[in-house]
């Protein structure tokens, strides 16, 4: 560690999650990974401070879920967790159905942190995964998705490791302030402890509620599993199977149609569906 390195301010955006089987509220998996990443920064950038930010309605259920993040202050080897500012969470209280983005933008712009960490996609609500992009656009900050690690922060430039498919990593240099989003490639979140979660405080700030007009027009229905293309295993040997599992996706069979009419395009799609046996 170089002595001239100063700690940075990190804001972690956390949402109320939803358990995939029972639908109970919980700390959202990706957001918790984001917080884990932030807490791990103490090692790379000593003196960093983490603040938690949530915009949404306040209820007993959502509070219990949000406290799940606060319980991570006491994790393994994290004596300094409490020193990193995890005693409180800032809750921007909004009525149900309000748009979180303007509230978050206003709050972040008022006292800009150097780094904003967020999960890639919420577990309830729209779950469109657009929030980090909308924030980045409005704040005019760079955005890095699929973050795996923050390697170092020097002179206002962070060296980040971005996760790509199939275990590949890409090293990026980003000027701070920046927004990063994490998905399942980030380190798994530590256990949340009951005691610190119960003791921590919620700082509630009311913000002007802008109704989410887009959401109001939507119809919500329980999600269905997406159909998966049937996988026909052609490999005859273990070597072939390994190659098939480890190889990059090769888009050899694809066909790009350019400058065709709607009829021709529809014809091509129709033909493909027939080939695949989806239409008979």
């Amino acid at each position: 560690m170089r002595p001239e390195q100063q700690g940075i301010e990190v804001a972690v955006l956390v949402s109320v999650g939803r358990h995939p089987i029972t639908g109970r509220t919980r700390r959202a998996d990706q957001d918790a990974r984001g917080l884990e990443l932030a807490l791990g920064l103490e090692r790379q950038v000593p003196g960093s401070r983490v603040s938690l930010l949530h915009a949404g309605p306040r209820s007993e259920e959502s509070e219990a879920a949000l406290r799940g993040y606060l319980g991570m202050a006491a994790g393994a080897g994290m004596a300094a967790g409490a020193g990193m500012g995890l005693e409180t969470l800032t809750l921007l209280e909004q009525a149900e159905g309000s748009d979180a983005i303007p509230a978050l933008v206003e709050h972040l712009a008022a006292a800009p942190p150097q780094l904003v960490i967020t999960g890639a996609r919420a577990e309830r609500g729209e779950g469109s995964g657009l929030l980090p992009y909308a924030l980045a656009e409005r704040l005019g900050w760079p955005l890095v998705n699929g973050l795996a690690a923050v390697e170092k922060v020097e002179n206002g430039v962070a060296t980040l490791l971005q996760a790509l498919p199939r275990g590949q990593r890409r090293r990026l240099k980003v000027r701070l302030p920046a927004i990063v989003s994490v998905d399942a490639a980030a380190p798994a979140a530590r256990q949340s402890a009951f005691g610190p979660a119960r003791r921590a405080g919620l700082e509630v700030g009311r913000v002007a509620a802008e109704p989410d007009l887009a959401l109001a027009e939507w119809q919500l229905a329980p999600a269905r599993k997406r159909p998966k293309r049937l996988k026909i295993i052609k490999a005859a040997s273990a070597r072939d199977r390994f190659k098939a599992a480890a190889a990059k996706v090769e888009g050899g069979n694809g066909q790009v149609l350019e400058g065709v009419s709607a009829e021709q395009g529809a014809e091509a799609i129709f033909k493909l569906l027939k080939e695949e046996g989806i239409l008979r």
Partner: protein
Amino acid sequence: MLEILLPILIFAALALAAIGAWRRIRLWRQGRPAEVDLLRGLVAMPRRYLVDLHHVVARDKAMSNTHVATAGGFVAAAMLMILVHGLGLANPVLGGLLLAASALMFVGSLFVARRRRNPPARLSKGPWMRLPKSLMAFSLSVFLSTLPTVGVLPADVGSWILALALVAALAWGLGEMFFGMTWGGPMKHAFAGALHLAFHRRPERFSDKQGGTGRSTGLKALNLEDTSAPLGVETPSDFTWNQLLGFDACVQCGRCEAACPAFAAGQPLNPKKLIQDMVVGMAGGSDAAYAGSPYPGKPVGEHAGEPHGPIVARQGTALVDAETLWSCTTCRACVEECPMMIEHVDAIVDMRRFLTLEHGNTPNKGAEVLDNLIATDNPGGFDPGSRLHWAADLNLPLMADVKQADVLLWLGDGAFDMRNQRTLRALVKVLRAAEVEFAVLGNEERDSGDVARRLGDEATFQSLAGRNIATLAKYRFQRIVTCDPHSFHVLGNEYGELGGNYEVRHHTTFIAELYDADRLAFAPWKGGTVTYHDPCYLGRYNGEYEAPRRVLEALGIQLNEMERSGFRSRCCGGGGGAPITDIPGERRIPDMRMNDVKETGAELVAVGCPQCTAMLEGVVDASAEVRDIAELVADALVARPIADAASPARRPVGKTTAEEVF
């Protein structure tokens, strides 16, 4: 000269002992307050000592006789000595009694010495090795200095040198027996032990004059309402004062060490060392002076603690390492064996509570299991709506439909496990054959909270327990029957404190009752030799050793008992969340247990617990098959003679079930 020196010596020793006692009491008082009926405890103490404690000591006849002679002789000799030599009541009757008492003590001390010649590994050495000599010095010198008092020898016999030697020996003896008793010598166990028995944190575990055997095994609840109350034990001073007193009572006999499955498996736990570490922490210092077997793989002298310092460090070492605490299977073998009635398991769970609730540091799969329990009400993270899938074809009556039944069949989390589903199906078959009116909660049932509680997550336990109690309150039933001893224990012994009081039966107990009431008939046993493995949570936790054996006998099975069976049964390794925290050792506990089975030559081991089934069946190349008693019973069912059949209305049900058997 003796007449002048003896009273001085005696009263000096007594005064020093009193100062030591005051200091020792101050050490205990560092602990948290506890509600103890002091007076009633003191009144009950002699009975607890003479009956309950002696009952445990007497499992080793030779040692019990040795202790009766030595301790009885010492107590009598000490009292009489104060009268005769201290206060100068040189009456020949008292003197004669004193001679007899010190002689008895001397004989006892000879046996203590013999035991110390080649001490077994479980005994602590160090200062304990000098104890027989101290006992001899005391008894012999008291005996000799009493001879002139009763007139056997003239008062001025011998030379000054002889008298001085006698005084020196007596000073040594008094030093060990009186001074050492309260200043931390081996005799500390007598002082602390007596008070520990009086102020025990589980007064209900002792027998009473009305013939009650006394049993108290349920963990005590944390008060979660009070947000200022600490969650579990972080420092030695977080224990209650009578727990600290209990640690101080340890005689380091190592019976717990010999019984501990984790120690035998080479996992880093030794119950005796753990209790000694708590004593070290209470007084402050390092464990370097400990003279017994260490935690396997952890040399003595590397750990230290203080009364207000952490027991488990977040980083580095403190008094105890976390993996020591997580090695425990909560099988209670140590508590069962402890002649001083120390509650090891309570202490371990108290410390685990802090690690889980405050540190958020449950090892290995612990965090995942706890998260599952919170989100899905079962440790495996299965869909709670699929709890009854195994019984899709059984048409089990649901409590939600029938509202009341004689028997509520509690399924337990084994309902998600394919192996245990076979047991459950067998049990349902048996219940139907006996025409028992039963119903299940189905998807309304949740995990009992056993694993959460033993992993230290009291919050999740109380949440699960509260919701289960609310569900059970909606229905009417006579009793709960379950094939899971862990659910049995928690429902029967731990829900009471939270407001749920039920009559709970283990399925073997219930089957034995049904058989005794002639509601079941069995075909004769045609299989091979059988042994029975007592589940800890059925046997030691609930005292049920008889019913499973009665059922096996009714099946026509003659048991080849294992050497360690009944209250000495060795754990399968599946309790206390041990398979979840999975602390590495040199051997696996279930492997050792299957070796015990192998030694009996049995081809089949009968069990009565889903955990034991899973653990024992997981042993590679086992010599015996593992079957639950319910399965054995279901296989042996035959139709009852028609004359015995119950009410005609129910007969068809019984018939169809019985016909399936043929």
